[in-house]
């Protein structure tokens, strides 16, 4: 029994030391602003196109996702929600997004913003078509809604400082404030990204096997997507097998090892740059828009130390 207890104590110490280390709240807050900002941009640009199609889609095509079933079950909806509901849900989502970004009642507004986005996106994706780029961002918003991401750089923080000032308490500079709950959300998002890339690598290994490493497959996809989405650069590059072979191995290395960012802070900058190049290249050659992943890389950036350095130089 004491062996089990000792093992549990050791395990908890490792877990505690990894997830609950003191970390700057500024890193979390900047990620909150970036992620809510990106989701708002998507709500104002790409998502309305899909929402406008909803009324025209036959009910026979409605096969609700699990999230949609959970969200509509309390209202007893069997079929698709009435399109008129969009006139309430869509503007409400924008409002709560702005509140979450500005950081007023941050956790509550972030939670509601995340749920409304989940509803809109799951509704769109319950008609036989779904896409991947938005999924990780929704998960990241859910994670942030459970975190102290509004403790600094927010209306909540400004109100708290006003209160402290009235009561004669002096506040520390916001970029120096830390919390033991400030690192777990960013680490968890790194792990989510790592699992996503491992999933992609695993699928290539299981489905493609060694054939995937020969370069022919990526070459074929470059041309196919270049033709399909009118990306001449993809069609051109796809005609050079040695280039496709090099890109194949770079992709494999990146996908199999990205999870290291969650374990080794020193390699983060390298993977962020490589990821930007990878997803930028994928968009230019294949028009696959994984910009959300590039913004999610913000969890790897040491914002607070950069700000401290700039402020130190300015002083």
């Amino acid at each position, binding site marked *: 029994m004491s062996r089990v207890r000792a093992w549990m104590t050791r395990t*908890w110490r490792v877990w*505690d*030391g990894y*997830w*609950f280390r*003191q970390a700057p709240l500024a890193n979390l807050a900047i990620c909150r602003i970036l992620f809510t900002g990106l989701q708002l941009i998507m709500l104002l640009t790409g998502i309305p196109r*899909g929402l406008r*199609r909803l009324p025209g*889609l*036959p009910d026979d*095509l409605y*096969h609700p*996702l*699990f*999230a949609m079933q959970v969200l509509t079950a309390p209202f007893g909806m069997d079929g698709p929600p009435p399109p008129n509901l969009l006139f309430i849900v869509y503007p409400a989502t924008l409002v709560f997004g702005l509140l979450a970004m500005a950081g007023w009642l941050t956790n509550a507004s972030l939670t509601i913003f995340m749920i409304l986005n*989940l509803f809109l996106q*799951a509704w769109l*994706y319950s008609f*036989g*078509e*779904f896409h*991947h780029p938005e*999924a990780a961002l*929704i*998960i990241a918003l*859910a*994670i942030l809604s*459970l975190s102290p991401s509004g403790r600094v750089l927010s209306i909540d923080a400004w109100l708290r400082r006003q209160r402290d000032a009235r009561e004669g308490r002096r506040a520390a500079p916001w970029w120096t404030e830390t919390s*033991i*709950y400030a690192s*777990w959300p960013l680490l*968890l998002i790194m*792990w*989510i990204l790592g*699992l*996503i890339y*491992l*999933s*992609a690598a*695993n*699928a*290539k290994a299981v*489905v*493609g*096997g060694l*054939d*995937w490493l020969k370069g*022919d*497959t*990526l*070459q*074929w*996809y470059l*041309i*196919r997507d270049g*033709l*399909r989405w009118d990306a001449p650069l993809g069609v051109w590059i796809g*005609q050079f*097998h040695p280039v496709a072979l090099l890109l194949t191995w770079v992709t494999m290395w990146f996908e199999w090892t990205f999870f290291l960012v969650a374990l080794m802070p020193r390699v983060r900058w390298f993977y962020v740059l490589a990821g930007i190049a990878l997803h930028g290249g994928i968009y230019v050659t294949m028009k*696959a828009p994984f910009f959300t992943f590039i913004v999610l890389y913000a969890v790897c950036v040491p914002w607070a130390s950069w700000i401290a350095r700039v402020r130190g130089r300015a002083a």
Partner: protein
Amino acid sequence: MTRRTTGQGISASKLLVSAAIAGVLFCQTITAFHWVHTMFHGRGRKGYYWPFLDYPMYSRPHARREPFDRYVLFARLEDGTEVEIVPADLSLTFWKFEKGPVRAILRDDPAQLVVYVRSYEARFGRRLTAVRLENHPRVLGEAGLTDAPVQVVKTVDLVAGAAEVAGP
């Protein structure tokens, strides 16, 4: 339970957060590696547990000289004229079109095809008597990309209320 702010010790908050961490990692892991179905006998088609997904894009192997399929859908009207049906005619995206009427024809699924036929007829006030799926492939050869011969994949007769499928 001990409550400290230095990162040491167990607290209710840490336990709750730890449960959330474990839950999120669990959900993403079992969907990313298909353990939902293999280990937990979970129900649901692809993407059912969105936003927890697997990422199998571009995993299927292809040979360099494999043709690039481009499906085009034609419909015959009652007066005998033919029109091309494009995704916008059915308020569909490219992917909904490929996984909708195109796939319904490729998989001999008349029940699914009829959904789209009825949608088109309701929108344009025209009755369709047949649909024909063609493939206009391209192929990478020694001289670069060229058009391969057009193939009639399937013609589906819609007359008499039942879709009958005929080969090329």
